[in-house]
């Protein structure tokens, strides 16, 4: 299938990749770095929120409430303060995210059933704030119910009080709601998309920048051979990156691979078409490697934000949701999360597969038509 001209271009390209250890290292290590950064740092899991407590009551009753907070690992009682001013300072400095005020008459009013505690929340980070809010409410309610039941038992009741309704939740696919399971498939998609488009754009523009394109033009190399020959080595590099990130994601972060690996790799190839197409197109416009980098970044960055990588698409304004339909990475992220976490087959994600294929062929086709083996 490979003719000798194509083989020569591919071999030349590989020699050049291997002779440039810096680029090679970057393209192999950047994905790992991104994976660890996003796998650990970009977590939306909220745990161990630092809490400052002003316990004005200091009785067994108030200590029991604090124990209930300690028992749930959402909060960490980091500071025991003696005044409201002190508490305010800690929250202002960011040392504590949450402040709990137990009034002096807590245990007395507890007996009346009118006890109140105040909770102060730092809302500057909405993720932490909202998690802390609902966690605090739940802990308070559970604690109150337990104490109520204890009292009734002591009073000789033979039944215990139960709320008339209970929502029993069942989390599928990612029962512990680990962020990494969500992030790592995203990282794979982003790497495939970004690395291929940037590497191909710069690889082709480099020939123009260094003037070697002039010598290539004069050879009988066909336009498509030049295109395919320049691209193929980077496809292989991108697939290596994919396997590398997938392996680390699976064995280090414990991301499950429930569906077919072969299907995933095949569909990754479809995403590559889009990434390569963007890179190829950027290379036909740009005159220098920096320009090529910039152009591909400018198309990649909004694409990544609108793909559902970091933020759920459902929460976006309608207009942005429509725009997201034009972003190939969006479909790939749905596909890869479905295959890895849900273990679905091709039938469940056929619409996304079709969309990804259409975009890949369209972008690649447009770029190929725009690609000329000429200087003007």
């Amino acid at each position, binding site marked *: 299938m490979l003719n*000798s*001209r194509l*083989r*020569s*271009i591919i*071999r*030349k390209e590989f*020699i*050049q990749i291997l*002779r*440039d250890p810096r680029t090679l290292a970057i393209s192999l290590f950047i994905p790992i770095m991104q994976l660890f950064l996003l796998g650990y740092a970009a977590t939306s899991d909220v745990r161990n929120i630092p809490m400052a407590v002003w316990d004005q009551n200091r009785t067994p009753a108030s200590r029991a409430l604090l124990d209930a907070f300690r028992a749930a690992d959402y909060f960490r009682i980091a500071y025991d303060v003696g005044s409201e001013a002190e508490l305010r300072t800690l929250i202002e400095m960011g040392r504590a995210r949450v402040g709990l005020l137990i009034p002096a008459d807590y245990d007395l009013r507890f007996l009346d059933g009118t006890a109140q505690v105040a909770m102060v929340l730092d809302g500057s980070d909405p993720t932490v704030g909202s998690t802390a809010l609902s966690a605090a409410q739940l802990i308070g309610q559970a604690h109150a119910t337990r104490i109520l039941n204890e009292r009734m038992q002591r009073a000789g009741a033979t039944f215990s009080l139960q709320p008339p309704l209970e929502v029993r939740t069942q989390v599928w696919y990612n029962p512990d709601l680990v962020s990494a399971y969500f992030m790592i498939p995203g990282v794979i998609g982003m790497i495939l998309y970004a690395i291929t488009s940037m590497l191909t754009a710069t690889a082709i523009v480099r020939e123009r920048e*260094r*003037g*070697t*394109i*002039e*010598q290539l*033009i*004069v*050879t*009988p*190399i*066909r336009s498509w051979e030049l295109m395919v020959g320049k691209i193929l080595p980077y496809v292989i590099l991108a697939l290596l990156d994919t396997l590398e990130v997938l392996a680390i994601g699976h064995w280090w972060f414990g991301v499950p691979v429930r569906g077919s690996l072969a299907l995933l790799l095949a569909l990754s190839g479809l995403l590559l078409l889009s990434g390569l197409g963007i890179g190829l197109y950027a290379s036909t416009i740009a005159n220098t490697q920096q320009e090529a980098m910039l152009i591909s970044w400018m198309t990649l960055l909004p694409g990544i934000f609108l793909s559902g990588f970091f933020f759920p698409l459902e929460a976006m304004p309608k207009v942005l949701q429509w725009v997201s339909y034009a972003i190939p990475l969006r479909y790939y992220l749905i596909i890869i999360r479905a295959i890895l976490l849900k273990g679905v087959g091709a039938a469940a994600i056929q619409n996304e597969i079709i969309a990804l294929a259409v975009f890949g062929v369209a972008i690649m086709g447009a770029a190929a038509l725009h690609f000329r083996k*000429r*200087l*003007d």
Partner: protein
Amino acid sequence: MDTNWPIRVSDLHKSFGAIHAVDGISLRVAAGEIFGLVGSDGAGKTTTLRLLVGALWPDAGEIAIAGYDMSRQAEQARAHLGYLSQRFSLYEDLTVLENIRFFAEVRGLSTGEWLPRSMEILDFVGLAEFKDRRAGQLSGGMKQKLGLATALVHRPRILLLDEPTTGVDPVTRQDFWQLIIRLLNPDAEDGVAVVISTPYMDEAARCNRIGFMRAGRFLLEGPPSALCATLEGRILELRGQPLRLLRRIAGQDEDVEDARAFGDRLHLRVREKRMKAVLRRLPRRIRAGGGSLDDLRQVPPTLEDVFIDLSEDVL
């Protein structure tokens, strides 16, 4: 296929915006012939060569290379084409041999052919012992020879060279021309047709035919001797001291069209049939002006004289 004229170009035009880089060039080059595109920077030499190899698309005109129409059969034509661009345009991160191998293979030399042929051509240009050196580590002259070697590896019938000796030391320039002349083989059937662009008149003089280019056109075209003959009997050589004074005095003479320094002497271009008058009165005027005259005599015109003459005509 027209074997008599490996290169045939008629009425070629190419504009970049409002600039007519090539404005009506017609050209035929025979096998075994060196054609020189001569002109200063911006005359349209590089654009002409880039049109010939199909790197640029002409606005109008026809190009046939080895009998193939460049607009329709460019790849067939390119199989017979060797081209050396003005800038070194090989891969600096590949070795000498890897560069040649790449360009040999993409031009269809098979696995068994490329190595003996590459060594043969490296031997020819004198780079055999540097075959494993990275191209980026070669000197300027060696880079140009490597460029020539890769342009020749597939035994092209047509060789296009864009200012191959610009920025190369004089010894290497000599070597380079010897290589080109050895290639030509004008008596054999398979002689190479060469088009070379150059700003140097001494190189232009080595060509079989030259075309003086200016603003995308040929001002004059023909063998160097014929071009020089147009100024026969009109060039005087003047030696003396001080040169600046002599130049001013000579320039004021009513029959001297141009006085220009050529190293330690002056070349004067004299109006037609006024040679004797100038020879008679100029020594007198120089002495009266306080200069000292060593020698004043008629010399055969050089291409540089022709070039200067042409440049002024247009102005």
